[in-house]
């Protein structure tokens, strides 16, 4: 079990750094369909920011905000978002994940963005879940 660090340098630096890591993870997810990166890499970066939070502030502090149930809900929400976009494309008359039939502007980019967000949510929650299971084993 990781307990809270006494070092004020580690606490201040991680408190300053974590929002920027999360912003970079969101950037990687949002630009995944047109540049290097994507849902998996962005999700791993987001998960790494939460792991840094656990390492610097201790597990007990973070446990209040990240219950096991919420992490599992996030995991399932990502998979459901992925599947729902595919099924909506099927209901509108196309194939599974056939973005071109979606009734929005730039349907391919927007459909792919939804897929990336689903993948990112699942990967982030699974990374936090693996880390937490290893920590509390």
């Amino acid at each position, binding site marked *: 079990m990781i307990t809270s660090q006494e070092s004020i340098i580690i606490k201040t630096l991680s408190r300053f750094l974590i929002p920027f890591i999360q912003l970079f993870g969101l950037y*990687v997810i949002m630009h995944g369909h047109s540049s*290097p*990166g*994507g849902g*998996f*890499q962005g999700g*791993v*970066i987001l*998960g*790494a920011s939460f*792991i840094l939070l656990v*390492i610097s502030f201790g597990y007990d502090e973070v446990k209040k905000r990240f219950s096991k149930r919420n992490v599992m809900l996030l995991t399932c929400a990502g998979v459901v978002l992925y599947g729902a976009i595919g099924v909506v494309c099927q209901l509108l008359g196309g194939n599974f994940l056939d973005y071109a039939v979606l009734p929005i502007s730039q349907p391919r980019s927007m459909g792919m963005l939804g897929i990336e967000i689903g993948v990112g949510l699942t990967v982030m929650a699974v*990374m936090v879940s*693996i*880390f937490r299971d*290893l*920590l509390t*084993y």
Partner: protein
Amino acid sequence: MIWQLDLALLLLTVVCAIGALTVRDLLASAILLGAFGLFMCLLWVEMGAVDVAFTEASVGAGITTVLFVIAVFKTERKSKD
């Protein structure tokens, strides 16, 4: 491709890999494996595979090192063999 940069990165990668295999302290071994991942990532950037390098930098050098360090803290630090 710049062959001097390639040679330096390859040498550092091999040195990190051999070090991670031979060192007695398992915590140092985990950190050396992270360094190996970082040099592997730089090699992939240099070869033009930016997407693979991105995955290697986030998974290989980031998450894996943290998981190995936690595993070392949960077991013991000295290698037996």
